[in-house]
């Protein structure tokens, strides 16, 4: 018996409450498929996450249900979905914290693969290529020479922003991104803030301005701050966006 089955059996034995899941169903590859919600019922169980619940539904009720999971521990960012309208990670959501009826929908903005599964990777790659979200260096690096040590404080500050798992919650929670598909979202802007801190990246503020000093970048952000409130990794997005905006405004004012 696997973990999910053990938990489910445990739930039955303890007279758990009945959870009702309304799950978005649509297969874009099937011409006969129409977007709708299917309802599934399941007994709640102590310690059960939405990851376990969805697996139980797939195992016991509908093997065709599509959703994404890899790590089950809030690290891979695959399982982001709208849970009662709010984007968050299913694997880190305990069913015990949810109301009796739970509506699950795929993240908006991203390409739908089917049911709850969306192609965040495609969006993230396109954003990364646009913003060049890597350590950008002006000259070729000599890979044989010893790397310059990084100041521990700088490394810590970079690590704080590097914790982003590209789950897409900030994009799905952003009123601007929902309206304007070319907006790079908090994930893109946070990455720019991260590489700006990196001493190995030779780009200066004027270079970053070329990438994000636009209406698709920091000056398109309308500060609705859904990103900051839904980020499952609690990244300091509000602070980073304001900081980048001030730096980019400085580039504008000083030419």
């Amino acid at each position: 018996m696997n973990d999910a089955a053990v938990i489910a059996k445990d739930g039955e034995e303890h007279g758990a409450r009945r959870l009702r899941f309304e799950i978005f169903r649509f297969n874009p590859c099937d011409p006969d498929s129409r977007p709708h919600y299917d309802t599934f019922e399941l007994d709640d169980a102590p310690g059960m996450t939405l990851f376990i619940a969805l697996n139980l539904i797939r195992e016991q009720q509908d093997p065709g249900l599509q959703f994404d999971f890899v790590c089950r521990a809030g690290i891979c960012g695959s399982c982001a979905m709208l849970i009662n309208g709010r984007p968050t990670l299913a694997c880190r959501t305990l069913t015990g914290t949810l109301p009796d009826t739970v509506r699950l929908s795929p993240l908006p903005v991203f390409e739908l693969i089917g049911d709850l599964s969306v192609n965040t990777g495609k969006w993230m790659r396109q954003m990364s290529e646009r913003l060049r979200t890597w350590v950008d260096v002006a000259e070729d690096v000599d890979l044989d020479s010893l790397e310059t040590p990084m100041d521990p404080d700088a490394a810590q500050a970079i690590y704080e922003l590097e914790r982003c798992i590209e789950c897409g919650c900030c994009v799905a929670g952003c009123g601007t991104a929902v309206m304007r598909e070319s907006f790079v979202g908090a994930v893109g802007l946070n990455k720019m803030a991260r590489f700006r801190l990196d001493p190995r990246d030779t780009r200066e503020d004027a270079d970053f301005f070329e990438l994000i000093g636009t209406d698709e970048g920091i000056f398109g952000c309308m500060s609705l701050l859904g990103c900051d409130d839904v980020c499952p990794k609690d990244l300091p997005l509000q602070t980073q966006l304001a900081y980048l905006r001030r730096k980019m405004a400085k580039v504008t004012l000083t030419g």
Partner: protein
Amino acid sequence: MSAGRHSQAQLEPRNAPAVSYWPARLDLLQGASGLLLVLFMWAHMTFVSSILVSEEAMYRVSLMFEGYYVFGSSHPWLVSVVALAITALLMLHAVLAMRKFPQNARQYADFLAHRRRMHHTDTTLWWWQLVTGFLLFFMAPAHLYTMFSQADQIGPYASSWRVYSTQWPLYLVLLVVVEIHAALGLYRLIVKWGWLRSVSRKYLRMIIGGLAVYLVLHGVSTLLAYYKLGETLRDTPGLRYQPVEVHP
């Protein structure tokens, strides 16, 4: 630009768009014009509420803005100039803010669906900022044109008569709408630029919301004072206030 500032982005022509500072400038101008309008409106409401002190106090405030204490005589056209300047500032702010409005039916539908499912305070507040801003496109100019064209008709009795006889419905709605819009705009500016970082957004909303409630109540009291005074002038429309000491 020094050699060290060249990035790959600049070395590859196809990836190197011409830099435009306009998106940044427009965003800065939108915020700055909004902030100026908020400060003007609050100062304006403070001076207008001098009627709560006394008729004489309001009279002296109106003399001040007509330049009496500088030139020794009243020049109502100074008020007209201010009304024109504020109209220009309002137009600037309006045209810049319109960039942020949803632009078509799909964007409206997407945003409204997003707002409904998210139940997120700052997203919902932004919608109300947009709605109140839209209303101000029409309500603020109505008031500004009156001030521009009848700048010589400002005083305890003249203003009271205007409020009582024609303007009170406009002023009542305008007061509520403008205070909400100003409070939301100021809040947005603070979080947008990262000012007052030690105050959480929740507390900031409570502080600014409390301020807005106070300002609306203060404004309603002021409006009521003008209305009541205007009511006493029913049989003598056009009567001007006779100052106690100052004789312009």
